Each structure stands twice: as C-alpha cells, then as structure tokens.
C-alpha cells in the first residue's frame, strides 16, 4: 500500500462541504485532532474547479493552473500533503499534478501565467507534488489510523447496519492509487467495522455511480434519478440504516433527493447519509450538532442518535 502521512497536511476545503455539509469538515478536524494528525487549513486556497470542470465549463489548462496555485500555497505553508474532503477535488488535483510533472510545456506556460499574474512565489517546480505520495483523500489519512480509531470508540453501534458508497472519483479515476481493489473497495467498511458496526460488504450496484453525473442531475433529472434509485433499492433490500459517503456531491445526491426519488417509486427509503468522518466522529463521542453538523441533513439523522443514546444509557445503568 502507498505510504500515508500524518503530518504537514493541508486540509483542502471543498465548496460543497462549505455550504451543504459543513459538518464533514468539522468532523474531520475533530478526528484529526483526536488522532494527533498535524494539519492546517488555508483561507487562501481556492476551489479545485471540479464541479465546473466536469460540467465541461472549465478547460483542463485553467484547472491545472489553479491547481498549481493551490500547490504553491501548500508549499509556502510547509504543508505539502494535501487531504481532500471531496472525491472530485482528489481526482482533479491528482490529474493536475500529473500534468504539471509530465508535460513540460504546460508547466512552463502555467508558470509564466503565475509570474505575470504577480504570484511568482507560487510557481510550480517540477516534482513539487507527487500525485501518489502527496495527494490524498482525508479518508485515507483516517484509514491509516484505523487501529487508533478502534481504541477511541466511545459508543456501542453494534445494532446499526451500514453500507458504503465509495465515490467514483476516488476509486475509479486514478484507480492504481486507490486503496484496496477498486472493483470492491473496502476502505470505508474497514473504518466502520473498527467502530463495531455491522457492515454490508457487498450489495448489488455497490460500485454504481451515485447518479449525480454533474450536468445530468440538472439537465437529465429522470436519468440521474433512475440510477440513484437503483442503488437505493438495493440498499433498502439489504436493510441498511446508514449509507457512508466520502464525497459531498454523492451525499447531496442521496440525501437531498432521497425523498423525491422515493415518492416517484412509491416508497420511502429512510437511509441516513453520513460522511464517513461524520460517522466516525459520532462513534468517538462527538456532539451531533456542534461537531457532526447533522442539522444540515435532509434525511433526518436523529433516529440513529436515539439508537446510540439508548445503548449508552443501557451501558450506564
């Protein structure tokens, strides 16, 4: 397996996390703090362009130029290991890193642009970033600490059944760098199991896309929903309580749209969507509202909280 750092990490903010599920960032920070992972967050970091990029609005060159700028900031801050909260950021940054390292003429023109834009300090030097050893998803940083996490678990979750939706842009884009087998990824299940929860390791449509498809959710809603529905159906069949996520875009798709999709299929799914960081934070005793941020979720998370509480209560008595 690739080597995963636990210090000098720039926790890379995500636009969708910022405004839809800020609890993902606070949960990740909570976990990083608990696990003694050394990281910073930078207010200067821009977005990765991901949503625009995959809506075909951004061109590859502009995306790579903005990545170079963000890489420059990470380098200046002495935190060259990037940990993303979103699978799209992960894929976009890795791709840009590869282009900057391998295509000399592109690197040169981007550096010239950075120079001309008055930010010569942010210029990209060859091999500044290694896509494999500097760019990670936050989940990977946590995966590396799975034993420590196991020791810190504070609640009993054994009655809960979870399944995972590993984001396509984490697993499939740079599939050689994905932890485990991309054809049946287990990163999130492994983390969840460390908290004593039951996991559904395989279910039909496990490696399906969430159905968001960038433009498809907005331009071809029905198509988009029929794909999301396939997965929801299978999860329902497997009686899953929580679907774990590693990408705010997928989470948005399954959480916010769940009700409408259910209506069109004449059913209710009631599958709670949590980012794996949010889930782990809960397991480690974080406050559901002040850390995990469940108040921004559409499918209410409270029913599961009741289960957890009861268990703790039973424990104390």
């Amino acid at each position, binding site marked *: 397996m690739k080597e995963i750092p636990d210090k000098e990490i720039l926790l890379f903010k995500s*636009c969708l996390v910022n*405004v839809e599920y*800020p*609890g993902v*960032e606070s949960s990740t*920070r909570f976990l990083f703090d608990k696990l003694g992972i050394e990281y910073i*967050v930078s*207010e*200067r970091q*821009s*977005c990765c362009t991901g*949503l*625009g990029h995959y*809506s*075909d*609005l*951004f*061109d*590859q*060159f*502009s995306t790579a*130029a*903005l990545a170079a*700028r963000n890489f420059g900031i990470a380098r200046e801050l002495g935190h060259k290991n990037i940990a993303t909260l979103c699978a799209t950021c992960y894929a976009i940054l890795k791709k840009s890193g*590869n282009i900057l390292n*391998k*295509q000399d003429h592109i690197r040169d023109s981007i550096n010239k*642009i*950075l120079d*001309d*834009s*008055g*930010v010569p300090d942010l210029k990209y030097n060859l091999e500044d970033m290694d896509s494999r050893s500097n760019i990670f998803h936050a989940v990977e940083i946590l995966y590396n600490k799975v034993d420590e996490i196991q020791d810190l678990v504070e609640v009993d979750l054994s009655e809960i059944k979870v399944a995972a939706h590993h984001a*396509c*842009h984490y697993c*499939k*884009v740079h*599939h050689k760098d994905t932890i485990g087998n991309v*054809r049946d990824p287990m990163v999130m299940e492994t983390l969840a199991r460390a908290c004593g929860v039951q996991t559904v390791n395989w279910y039909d449509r496990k490696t*399906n*896309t969430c*159905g968001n*498809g*960038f433009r*498809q959710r*907005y*331009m071809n809603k029905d*198509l988009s929903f*029929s*794909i999301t529905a396939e997965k929801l159906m299978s999860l329902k069949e497997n009686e899953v309580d929580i679907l774990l996520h590693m990408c705010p875009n997928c989470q948005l798709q399954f959480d*916010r749209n769940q*009700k*409408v999709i259910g209506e069109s299929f004449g059913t209710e799914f009631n599958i709670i969507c949590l980012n794996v960081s949010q889930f782990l934070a809960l397991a480690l005793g974080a406050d559901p*509202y*002040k*850390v995990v*941020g469940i*108040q*921004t979720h*559409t499918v209410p998370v409270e029913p599961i909280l009741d289960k957890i509480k009861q268990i703790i209560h039973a424990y104390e008595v």
Partner: protein
Amino acid sequence: MNTLKIGENTFELAQIIIKDLKASENIGILKCIQCGMCTSLCPAARHTDYDPREIVKRVLDKDESLITDDIIWNCFYCYTCHSVCPVNNSACEVNQILRQKAIDNGKGKPKIAPFSAYGDSFLEYGLGAIPNDFFDHLLKDYGKEWLQLKVDLEDIREELGLGPILLPEKDVNDINKILEKTGFTKRLERVRRCKDEGNSR
C-alpha cells in the same frame, strides 16, 4: 454501404484525442477490442441509447459527426468504464474531449451555458457553487428546509467552529488574473453570450 478509400487516415480523430491534455498517459484507444465490458457496467448505457463501446468504435472510424451528436452528452463521467477496460481505454475521457471539441465548434456551448454561473462564482469568490439557475428547481426537490439551511448557514458554521468561507480579496484578484491569462474569462464570456441569446430567443 460505406467505402473505405485507400489513403484515408481513419486514425486522425483517435490521434487528436490521444494527444489531448485531458487524455491519460497511454490511453488505450487504439487497443480497444470492442469487448463491451465498459458498456456492461455503464449507467448511461443502461438507461439510454448511449454505448461507450460504440463511441470508441466511432472514434476509431473517424466518425466526426460524433462531435455534434447529442449522444456524447449522456455520459456521467463516472469513470466506471475507465476503471475496468482491459486495455486501459477510457470512454469517459474520450467523451470529455469530444465535448470540448463540440464546445470549440459552437454546438456544445448551449449545452454548458446553464452552468456559466459556476464560472461567475469562481471569478467573484474563487469558489465553486451550484449555479443559481437551478435554485428554484432544486428547492422543489430538496424541500423548504434547504432554504432555511441557506439562511442559517453562517450560524451553523460558527457553531461548528468553522472559519469564513470567503477568500481574502487579494487572492480573488490573483485568481482573476490567472483565469484571464489562461483564456478562461474569454471562454466564459462566449458561453454567457450564447446563454443570453438563448434566453432572448
């Protein structure tokens, strides 16, 4: 019937794609054996007429009508095909490149026009955001609570101990300069123009 004329280079389109910045190193277009593994797992193929294997075939046949064919706009960019293709081909990347070609030749601009607000937000804040064009439409599906969330966002973030979302002004300016020089700003203007035309029509 189609006649294959001597001296016709049918690999031109494939070569253009292979050389594109978006294409992975060693993309296996030329090695495609038309096995259909990509299609067997493709979500778009399951629900539409789209077929990634056929896209690759048409590229290898130098079928340039593909660029203006609506079919390429069905792909989800889910990279499933890319992750299983036994010869390391990627219908996903092929589609991305074809769409860029469509945008360059004009036909694709209306397709991305609805997303131009994403670019506006980037220039304004250095951040991405769901284009506001879709707001009402989303609100209907997501429910009123979502609107409340937008209103309460600042407070919630504060409660979670999270800092401000916005970048310092200097950085936003830098980003604007960079995007100006990469040609993005112009590109965005052209897309916007096309959107306005669409609206006025």
